[in-house]
C-alpha cells in the first residue's frame, strides 16, 4: 500500500462517523422525500406506494391553498428580510459607536434571540389580545387599535412584527462582530477627508460589510421561508383566520400529519426546497460579483 493511499483510507475512516450520521439523518431522508413525492402513499391500514410520476407536482398548481400559502410566505419574506437586515445593521452601528452603557444594551438587545420562539409567540399572543398591552398602549396614544390575532388582514403582519423583533438582534451580533473587524485607519482617513458620520457609514461600513450582508440575507431568506412555529401557535395549527397565516411549511405539516398525504406533502417540500435554492442563487449573483480582496 502506498503512503498516499494509507493516508486516504485513514482519512475516510475518521470521516466515517460523520458520513454515517449525515447519510442516515440528512441524505437518505432527502432522497426518500423525493421518492415519496413521486408516489401516492397510503399509510394507515397497511403501507402502500403507488408510483404516479409527477402528478403530485401538477396537483400543486391546482391547489388554491398551496397558492395562498406561497403568496403569504413570499409576502412574509419580502417584508421581513429587508426590514430585519436594515434594523440589524442600524442597531449594530449604534452599538458600535461610543455610547454610554453599550454593553448593557448589547445584552438587552440580544435577549429575544436566546428566548425560545414558542415562548415568545405565546407572550406576543398575550400582548396582541384585543384588551392586551399593545392595544392599551395604542389607545392611550389615541391611535387605532386592531384585533391582531383574529383579523385576517392583520394576523400575518402581527407575526412579521414579532419575528423581526426576535431575529434582528441575532443578525445585529453578526454585524457587530464584522464592524469591529474594520480597521480604524480607514475611518481616520475618511475623517481627514472631511466625511461625516453618515458618509462614513454609507461609503465605508456598508460596502465593507457586503459579504456579511450576503450571509445575513441568505440566512434570513431561508429562515423566513421556513416559517412554521409562530403561525402554527398563532392559529392553533389551522393557518387561519381565513388562510391568512397559512405558510408553505404549515401546509406541508397539515398534509403530512393531518391528512397523512405524505406523497403530496413531500412534493410541496421539494418545491419549497427548489424555491429557496433558486432565490439563494439569485442572491449570490447580486452579492457575489465583487469579492473583498485583502
Amino acid at each position, binding site marked *: 500500500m502506498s503512503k498516499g493511499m494509507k493516508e486516504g483510507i*485513514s482519512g475516510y*475512516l475518521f470521516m466515517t462517523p460523520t458520513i454515517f450520521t449525515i447519510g442516515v439523518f440528512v441524505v437518505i431522508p432527502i432522497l426518500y422525500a423525493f421518492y415519496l413525492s413521486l408516489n401516492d402513499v397510503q399509510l394507515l391500514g397497511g403501507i402502500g406506494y403507488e408510483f404516479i410520476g409527477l402528478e403530485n407536482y401538477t396537483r400543486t398548481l391546482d391547489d388554491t*391553498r398551496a397558492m395562498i400559502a406561497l403568496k403569504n410566505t413570499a409576502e412574509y419574506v419580502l417584508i421581513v428580510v429587508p426590514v430585519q437586515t436594515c434594523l440589524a445593521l442600524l442597531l449594530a452601528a449604534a452599538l458600535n459607536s461610543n455610547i454610554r452603557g453599550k454593553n448593557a444594551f448589547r445584552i438587552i438587545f440580544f435577549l429575544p434571540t436566546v428566548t425560545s420562539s414558542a415562548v415568545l409567540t405565546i407572550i406576543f399572543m398575550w400582548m396582541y389580545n384585543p384588551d392586551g398591552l399593545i392595544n392599551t398602549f395604542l389607545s392611550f396614544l389615541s391611535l387605532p387599535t386592531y384585533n391582531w390575532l383574529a383579523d385576517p388582514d392583520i394576523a400575518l403582519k402581527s407575526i412579521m412584527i414579532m419575528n423581526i423583533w426576535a431575529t434582528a438582534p441575532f443578525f445585529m451580533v453578526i454585524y457587530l462582530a464584522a464592524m469591529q473587524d474594520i480597521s480604524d485607519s480607514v475611518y481616520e482617513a475618511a475623517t481627514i477627508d472631511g466625511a461625516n458620520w453618515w458618509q462614513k457609514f454609507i461609503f465605508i461600513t456598508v460596502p465593507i460589510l457586503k459579504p456579511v450582508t450576503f450571509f445575513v440575507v441568505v440566512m434570513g431568506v431561508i429562515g423566513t421561508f421556513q416559517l412554521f412555529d409562530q403561525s402554527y401557535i398563532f392559529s392553533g395549527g389551522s393557518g387561519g383566520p*381565513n388562510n391568512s397565516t397559512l405558510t408553505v411549511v404549515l401546509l406541508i405539516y397539515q398534509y403530512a*400529519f393531518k391528512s397523512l398525504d405524505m406523497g403530496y406533502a413531500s412534493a410541496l417540500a421539494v418545491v419549497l426546497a427548489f424555491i429557496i435554492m433558486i432565490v439563494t442563487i439569485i442572491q449570490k449573483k447580486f452579492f457575489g460579483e465583487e469579492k473583498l480582496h485583502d
Partner: protein
Amino acid sequence: MKFNKMLAAVGVTSMLMGTALAGCSSDSSGDGGSSDGEQVTVELAGWGSTPEEKELLNQTLQEFEESHPNIKVEHEVIADQYMDVMKTRLVGGEAADVFYLDAFEAPGLAKTGVLEPLDEYVTDEFDVDDFQDPLLNAFKFDDKQYGFPKDFSTLALFYDKQAFEEAGLEGPPKTWDELREYADKLTVDEDGDGQPDQYGLGFSSELARQFYKLHPYGAKVTNENNEAAFASDKAIEALQPIVDMKKDKIAALPSDAGTDWGGDMFGQGKAAMVIEGNWTVPFLESNFSDKDYATAELPTVNGEKATAAFTVAYVMNKQSEVKDAAWELISYLTGKEGMKTWTSKGLALPTRESVAAELGFDEDPIRKAFVAGASYAQPWQAGPNLPTINNNFNNQFTSALLGDQSLEEALKKAQETANKEIKASN
C-alpha cells in the same frame, strides 16, 4: 505511528457505529398474549381534560382494575393535536390498545381499516339496545360497530340572569327571531366607543357549531358522494341570521372580546348569552362560581327544534395484541356500571338510556336542557371527508362574518376548494 493512527480511527468509528446501531435494534418486546392468570396490560389513550374529569376517569379505571385483577390499565393523555398524534402512532404500530375517537373523525379512520370491529365481542349482557341510536350509529359503518360512545354532549343556550334582568327580559328566547331581539337588547356599550362591552350573543363560527341549522331549512353539509354540498340557497338562508347579527355587532366571536372560547366569554360577562355544550358547566362552576345563569334548549330554527350532539367512543386498535383484555376494558367503561361512575357528576351525559334515567339528569335544572336536546340532536358527523370540508368552511365563513365577502361567495368558494381537495386526495 501511522498504524496507531489507523487503529484509533477504526476504534472510534466502530464505537460510534456501535452505539448508533444499538439504538435501532433494541426492540425486544415481550409477548402481550394473555395466558392464564398472567397479568395483562392494556394501554388506553385519550386527550386531556379538566381535573374533575381526570379524577372521575381514574376512579372508573380503579374500579375496573379491582374487578379485573389480571388486567392493568396504562392510561396516557395526549395533550395536544390528538388526532395527528394518534394517526402517526397507528402508522408506526405504536398506538394504544384502546383509545378515544371523536365521531367527527370516525368515518375516515374506520375506512382505513385500523379499527377492530367489535360486533363479535358483544355479549347479551352488554345490552347494546340500551344505547341511544343516533349516538351508536355514529360509529357504525357497513353494518359493523367500531366503537361504543362513552358519553355525549348537546348544545344549549346559556344565559346570564342578571343581564336579562337589567335588560328587562324574562325567560329564554324561543326562536331565532326572538334570539335576535334579545341579543339586540342585551348588547351594552357603556363607554360608547362602538365596541360593545357586553355582546348579546357569543358564538363559535366553526361548522361544528353551525351545521345543525342547515337541516331544518332542508340544506345539507355533504351530498351522497361525501362531497361538500353546503353552498345552496337554503344553507344561505339558514346561516344568514348569524352573519347579520355579527355585522350589527350584537353577536360576536370569542376572539372579538379577547377570550379563547364561549364559556370564557360568558363567564367574564362579555356575552349575555352563549351557545355552548355541557362542558361549560364544570368550567363555570370552578372559574366563575358566582355567575348567576340558566340554560335552555336552543331557539327553534325555521320552526323546528334543532341542536348538535358531540360524541366520543372508545375504539380498539386492530393491531392490539391483547384484544380480549381491551374488550373487557371497553365493555366496562361503556357498560352500565362504568358509565354510571364516569357520568355521575354530570360532566358528560350518559349514552345509555338506563344510566341517564338512573342518574336523573333530566330533572337537573342546569342539565335538563342538554338531555332534552338529545332526542332531536344531529350528531356532528358527515362522512370521511368532513375534516377537509370543515377546514375549508371555517376558513371562508370567518371572512364572511368579517364582511370581507358575502355569505354566498364564501360558501361557494369553500365548497369548491373542499371538493377540489377531496378529488385530489382520492
